[in-house]
């Protein structure tokens, strides 16, 4: 039984018994992150994308970048060891989504219903 013999479970940042691939995975992650960062700056500063689409492009690149960080730096994978970490992260993302979209939605409504300011 390969898995049960391991002295440690794997968690983000810990990958015992998998030497060799580790330095490589950090380096691959660094390369991808640098490419995505440069792509974000290029998209923001040039007219490569249709201008109204630039924010969407930047958000997509940011999510890709965060994915690269989670997989290559924090070693979050799809394995059964990661179930608890992924669930906690998914709950966190739900709260983040609710806080940000909820605030923007409510405040935009309040703003639209404000009495006009004199001056």
């Amino acid at each position, binding site marked *: 039984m390969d898995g049960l013999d391991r002295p440690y479970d794997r968690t983000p940042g810990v990958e015992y018994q998998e030497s060799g691939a580790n330095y490589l995975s950090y380096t691959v992650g660094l390369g991808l992150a640098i490419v995505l960062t440069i792509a974000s700056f290029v998209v*923001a500063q040039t007219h490569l994308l249709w201008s109204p689409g630039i924010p969407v492009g930047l958000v997509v690149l940011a999510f890709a970048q965060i994915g690269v960080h989670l997989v290559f730096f924090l070693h979050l994978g799809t394995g059964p060891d990661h179930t608890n*970490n992924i669930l906690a992260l998914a709950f966190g993302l739900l709260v983040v989504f609710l806080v940000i979209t909820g605030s923007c939605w409510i405040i935009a409504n309040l703003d639209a219903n404000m009495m006009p300011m004199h001056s």
Partner: protein
Amino acid sequence: MTSATIDAVPAELVRGRGGGGPAPTRTVVAYGFWIFIVSDITMFSALFAAYAVLSGRTAGGPTAGELVNLPHVFIETMCLLLSSYAAGLGALSAERWRQDRFLIFSVFTFLLGAVFLFIEISDFAAMMKVGAGPSRSAFLSAYWALVGAHGAHVTSGLVWLIYMMAQVVAKGLRPHVLRRLLCFSLFWHALDIIWVGVLTVVYLMGVP
């Protein structure tokens, strides 16, 4: 695998679901710290929401486009990214009981983080000089709160890193020191993830 004993259950179905007894301390510590990181990200989401709501309210004061120096932001981003990479290599070295390598990578982690912080603080000082402090407008309050909170996290991470290097030198790579190092590297990588959000929302989207 036709035998009906417990051994017949594939390991990947038991691990992480309570099979094989209680989880090792290392897993419990890392999971607890992971919960802290998720709640820290949740706290940042409130600052991001405030920024998103207030970013247009400049009250006649300077806008992001007038204040931000994008080449500086690019250098900051690269410093933080390389610092995260060095921290990852340091964590790997520590887990393989290579204390010398860990210390070298940690020095790089620290220096790159310090360069990031130096650029950020000098940009903050330049903003104060032109009257773009946090009290100038709602936009600037939100900007200083969000970017400042990230900078404060980086500062505490640098202090923590010095403390960890001192522990490794004084105590060696013992299991409890390794667990603290694991928490530090999770923290440092998480700061990079938050910076991706700051970079995209504040700098790249805010500067036309």
